[in-house]
C-alpha cells in the first residue's frame, strides 16, 4: 500500500550535532513498511525548496502506529524538517532488503548516515533471532550513530573512523579481512558511493552476495519522472541499462549495479 498523508509529529530529538530523529504518527505506513523502504517527505509549505526529500524508514512501532526517521541536516530541506507539527509524507516507497534465512552469517556495513535504513533491518534480524556483525564507518566519532542501540539489539559492532577518533583508524572496508568476508552468507550496506563501490569489489572477489541501498537525486519518487537513474547490468556483459532507484531500488543486488 502506498499513501500520501499528513502525519502528526509525535516526537523530535536532536541526537547529535547535525543529526535529528523525528517520529510521526502514520499507522498504515508503520504496518506496511519493510526495512530499506523510504518516505518522500515534503519539507516546505511554500514553493521553495520545491521538491520532496527521500528519507529512509529508520524504525517502526506497530503498536503505537509510529514511524521514525533519522536524518542528517544536509541542506535547506532537511534543515526545515523539524519545524513542523505535521509532515506531509508519501510512502512506503521502493523495494527494501530481503531478510536472510535463519542462522545466516550476516555482515551489515553502514557509512555515516547509512545506518538510517540499516537499523530497521537490524531490528528485524534480531526479531528473527539472527545476530549480525555490524561495521560502522564515519569521518570522525561525531558521525557514528546508534552504537549503543545496535548492541542492545544483540549485534556486535566494530567501528572505523577516517581520523582515528574512534575505533580503527582508516576506512571501514579496511576491517573487512578476506577470511572474515569469505565466510559470510550476505552483506547489507548503505553509505557513500565510494565505500559501497569498494565493498562491492571485495565481496565479488569472495563470491558473497550483497544487498546495497543506493541514493540518487529524485523527482517523483514513484517511477514516473525517470530522474533517479542508476546504471545496471542487463543479461549481456557489454550492455547496460538505467534502472530507477525509487522503484527498482533503493536496494539493489551488488552484482547488478555498474560501479563506476
Amino acid at each position: 500500500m502506498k499513501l500520501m498523508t499528513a502525519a502528526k509529529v509525535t516526537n523530535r530529538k536532536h541526537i547529535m550535532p547535525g543529526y535529528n530523529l523525528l517520529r510521526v504518527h502514520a499507522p498504515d505506513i508503520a504496518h506496511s513498511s519493510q526495512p530499506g523502504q523510504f518516505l518522500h517527505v515534503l519539507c516546505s509549505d511554500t514553493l521553495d525548496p520545491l521538491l520532496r526529500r527521500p528519507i529512509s524508514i529508520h524504525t517502526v512501532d506497530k503498536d503505537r502506529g509510529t514511524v521514525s526517521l533519522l536524518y542528517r541536516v544536509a541542506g535547506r530541506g532537511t534543515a526545515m524538517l523539524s519545524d513542523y507539527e505535521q509532515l506531509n509524507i508519501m510512502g512506503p516507497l521502493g523495494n527494501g532488503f530481503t531478510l536472510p534465512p535463519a542462522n545466516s552469517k550476516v555482515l551489515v556495513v553502514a557509512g555515516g548516515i547509512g545506518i538510517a535504513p540499516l537499523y530497521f533491518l537490524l531490528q528485524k534480524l534480531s526479531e528473527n533471532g539472527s545476530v549480525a556483525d555490524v561495521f560502522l564507518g564515519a569521518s570522525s566519532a561525531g558521525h557514528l550513530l546508534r552504537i549503543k542501540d545496535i548492541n542492545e539489539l544483540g549485534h556486535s559492532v566494530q567501528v572505523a573512523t577516517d581520523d582515528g577518533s574512534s575505533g580503527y583508524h582508516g576506512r571501514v572496508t579496511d576491517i573487512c579481512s578476506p577470511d572474515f568476508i569469505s565466510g559470510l552468507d550476505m552483506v547489507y550496506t548503505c553509505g557513500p558511493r565510494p565505500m559501497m563501490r569498494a565493498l562491492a569489489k571485495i565481496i565479488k572477489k569472495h563470491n558473497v552476495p550483497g544487498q546495497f541501498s543506493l541514493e540518487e537525486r529524485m523527482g517523483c519518487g514513484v517511477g514516473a519522472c525517470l530522474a533517479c537513474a542508476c546504471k545496471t547490468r542487463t543479461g549481456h556483459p557489454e550492455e547496460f541499462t538505467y534502472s530507477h532507484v525509487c522503484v527498482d531500488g533503493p536496494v539493489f543486488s551488488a552484482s547488478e549495479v555498474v560501479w563506476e
Partner: protein
Amino acid sequence: MRTDINLGVNCAGIKMKNPVTTASGTFGFGEEYAHYLDLSSLGALVVKGTTLHPRKGNPPPRIIETPCGILNAIGLQNPGVDIVVDEILPRLQQFSIPVIVNISGDTPDDYGLVAKKLDQSYAACIEVNVSCPNVRKGGMQFGSDPAAAAEVTRVVKANTNLPVIVKLSPNVTDMVRVAQSVAEAGADGLAMINTLLGMKIDIHTMRPVLGNTMGGLSGPAVKPIAVRAVWQVFKETNLPIIGMGGITCADDALEFIMAGATAVAVGTANFINPRATVDIIEGIEQFLVKNGYSDVNQLIGKAHQ
C-alpha cells in the same frame, strides 16, 4: 461534481470532461500515480515521450532543484513505440479517458513511423515534441526553426488520422512564428511550453551538475514566461492550446485559460503533490461557482476581452 457547471472542453477534436491533463514526462504512463488518484477523473492523460526505438536516456544526475523550479535532463528514456502500443496503451483503456501520446524522433521520418504505429492504437491524439532540450538530435532542433517544425508536422499528419498537437519550445526568438508555421502545416492544436534550456554548476567540484551538462527548467519559476507565450500565440493563431509551465494550483490553471488555453497540463507539480491535477479540477469548478459562471469555456481567452 456539480451538474449545473460545465467543465468539459473540446481540444483539437478530443472531448475532455474537464480541461486538466498531465504534462508529458512528469506522469509516466499514468499507472505510477494510480495509487494516489483516480486516473479516470482526468480530462486526458498525456504520457511519456515515445520514440521509434527504446532509449536509455542520459547519465545521472538527471534532476536538480533550482529556486521554485527544477532542471531535468532525462534524455527521453522510454521503452519504444512498439511496447507502448502493444503493452502499455491497452492497459490504459480501463481508465476510459483520452490518452495523448507524446512523440519524438531524430528525423522527420522517425516521427512519421511512430505516428503510423500509433494510428491504429488506443491513443486518442498525438502530441509532437519538437522542443526537447535534452537530446542531441531532433527535439528542439526542429522546434526552433519554423520550416523544420512545419515539415515534422506535415509528415506526422500524413501518417495518421488522429488529431495532432504540436508542442512548442520557448527557446526561440519568436514562438508565434513557429506556431503559425505548424498551423499552416495542418496541426490541430498546440501545447506550450516545453522546458527552458538552463544549467547549474557545482562550485565545489567546479563542474556542471547535470550528467548531460544542460537541462530543461520547469516548475513555478517558468510560469510567467509560459502565460506570456500562451497569450501571444492565442492572439495570432486559431488553434486550441494546451497551456503548461509551472501550474501548481487552480489559480495558476485559470491564468492560462484566461490567457487563451483551452486545456492545461500539470507537470512538475505532480512530484510535490500527486493529487495536484484533481485538486485543480475541483478548484476550477469552485472558481466558476463563486464567480457566477456555468461553463469553463466562458473563460478561455477572457483576459483578451
